[in-house]
């Protein structure tokens, strides 16, 4: 039997509410960036929210996540509180990493969030190690590894898939294929553009999923996790998705048509799920408004939390470069 989400009113509210939280958080981040409250690189996830939310819904507390620099959505969906996340974007001491990582390096021990990683492909070997630890200890957790299709060209992708498959490790690889690695369209960089086929060549069961459909992603993730927990070894999902905004805040988007962006926006995962849920009677328009207002208030509170945060004292500059002990 394949696992299916129970799509009742509560769950529909949860899915939509989570996507709205991510969307509103990031739209505020963009504003804060122009106000220079957030600096450095900022990679927004707008348009891709269904992937984070669908995957996170399928996970248990014992599972761990390895992510990329485009990880705010993953972090929020996983349950990292919005205040410390925003404070990390500011670089404040009350941020998730006391501000040391910033937007691209969110870590959270409590939710087993093993980091945003700013080296394309750099997180995949870590996820293999987390899966290996789980297997050696006989634990029930799965390591979920999220990455963009750009990472598929890196050697670390191939090494990691081979190793995870060879050792039958509990790892769920999730490729969020948004069709562009910075300005490089996938056809310009890959000889085989169906990414899931590459995973299959390592004898990893792989599926292509509509990444603009939160329920489809959740169903696919539940199935993959069920197979992993049943001992089938690593699984692979290719989520077909699209980022509505620029790669980072420095990108003039000369490499794609406005019309293409507009076409994809018609498949906006938030509007699409909201329309479906109201049409099917699961949610009322007022419910959606309430969710939006709640998310907006949460973002306000997160900004206030970040604004109120202190800066790390310069005396602590080198703290944690070497650790005194392994955290318990």
């Amino acid at each position, binding site marked *: 039997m394949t696992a299916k989400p129970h799509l009742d009113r509560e769950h529909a509210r949860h899915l939509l509410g989570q996507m709205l939280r991510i969307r509103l958080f990031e739209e505020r981040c963009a504003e804060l960036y122009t106000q220079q409250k957030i600096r450095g690189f900022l990679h927004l996830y707008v348009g891709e929210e269904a992937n984070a939310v669908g995957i996170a819904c399928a996970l248990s507390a014992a599972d*761990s996540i*390895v992510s990329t620099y485009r990880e705010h959505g993953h972090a929020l969906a996983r349950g990292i509180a919005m205040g410390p996340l925003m404070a990390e974007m500011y670089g404040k001491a009350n*941020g*998730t*990493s*006391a*501000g*040391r*990582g910033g937007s691209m*390096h969110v*870590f*959270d*021990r409590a939710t087993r969030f*093993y*980091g945003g*990683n700013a*080296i394309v492909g*750099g997180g*995949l*070997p*870590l*996820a*293999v*190690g*987390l*899966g*290996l*630890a*789980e297997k*050696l*200890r006989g634990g029930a957790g799965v*390591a979920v590894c999220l990455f963009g299709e750009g990472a598929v060209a890196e*050697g*670390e992708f191939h*090494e*990691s898939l*081979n*190793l995870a498959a*060879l*050792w039958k490790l509990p790892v769920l690889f999730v490729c969020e294929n948004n069709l562009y690695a910075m300005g490089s369209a996938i056809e310009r960089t890959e000889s085989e553009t169906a990414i899931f086929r590459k995973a299959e060549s390592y004898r990893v069961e792989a599926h292509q999923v509509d990444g603009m459909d939160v329920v489809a992603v959740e169903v696919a993730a539940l199935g993959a996790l069920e197979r992993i927990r049943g001992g089938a070894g690593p699984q692979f999902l290719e989520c077909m998705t699209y980022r509505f905004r620029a790669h980072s805040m420095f990108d003039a988007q000369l490499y794609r048509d406005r019309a293409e962006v507009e076409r994809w926006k018609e498949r906006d995962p938030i509007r699409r799920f909201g329309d479906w849920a109201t049409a099917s009677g699961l949610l009322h328009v007022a419910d959606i408004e309430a969710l939006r207002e709640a998310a907006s208030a949460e973002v306000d509170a997160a900004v206030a939390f970040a604004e109120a945060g202190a800066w790390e004292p310069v005396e602590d500059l*080198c*703290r*944690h*470069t*070497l*650790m*005194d*002990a*392994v*955290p318990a």
Partner: protein
Amino acid sequence: MTTTYREAIKQAIRDALNRDERVFLMGEDVGRYGGCYAVTKGLLEEFGEARIRDTPLSESAFVGAGIGAAMAGLRPIVEIMTVNFSLLALDQIVNNAATIPHMSGGQFAVPLVIRMATGAGRQLAAQHSHSLEGWYAHIPGLKIVAPATLEDARGMLWSALEDPNPVLIFEQVNLYNMEAELAADAGAVPLCGAAVRRAGRDLSLVTYGASLHKSLVAAQLLATEGIEAEVIDLRSLRPLDDATIMASLARTRRILVVDEGWRSGGISAEICARVAEQGFYDLDAPPARLCGVEVPIPYPKHLEDAAIPQVETIHAAALELVRPSGRST
């Protein structure tokens, strides 16, 4: 009892596997083959496939997997065949292992041990003879050790596994067959702290790894000529034990750094800079260096020998420092 450097490391790994169930070993050909330098021979039979893990030729993935497993609470020992191949895992070592504890605000430690062979001297030509340990010593967040004795080979692995930080252990290839006495109950050796291997008053030879043994022979030669060299074994390249170096310099007032690695930007440069910063007024002569010649290590024996410090060249450089040929004494 008399044993070898190779055997001392193997015993250290066995001890660790017996002492701590979180410890496991992985790397290319560590199991069925027994290790490319036969360090791990027999361990697969003794501890089984789960804890002695042969990996594919995927340096980046298995080093990264070691980092992930360490972050998750295990204590992996990763063997990279030689430092030359560690270049394919540089991303994981430098971008992940060295940064994550700091970048996560101390939420995650990386208690990982990476062992690898290093150095020239076996006529393996340029791509198998690098001495890049000094390079790694550039990186904050890593600890870099180079055991030159059996006690250190055995005892530093122990300490490395107890350390909450990523520790890279460099084993000079010519040391594996070295024989010496080793107490059956030899224990842990701290990761920091240089050792004075020979006391002297006329100059300090500061070195590590296989060059230590050449320096000790050179010191004996010098002694027959009435020159007493103090020989310092760094043992750790990061952190460097400045105090022991400066204390030795204060006694001898002359320093010669002997390093198989290249001179430009090497660990010898760092040591001389620290000597200039901290020991300038103790110096009776400019700090001197004898390093690997700046050339890809060549294959023929006579050229390879000429490319790295040897007893004769150490002796000559020491003599020059104490009794400069250009000046009358």
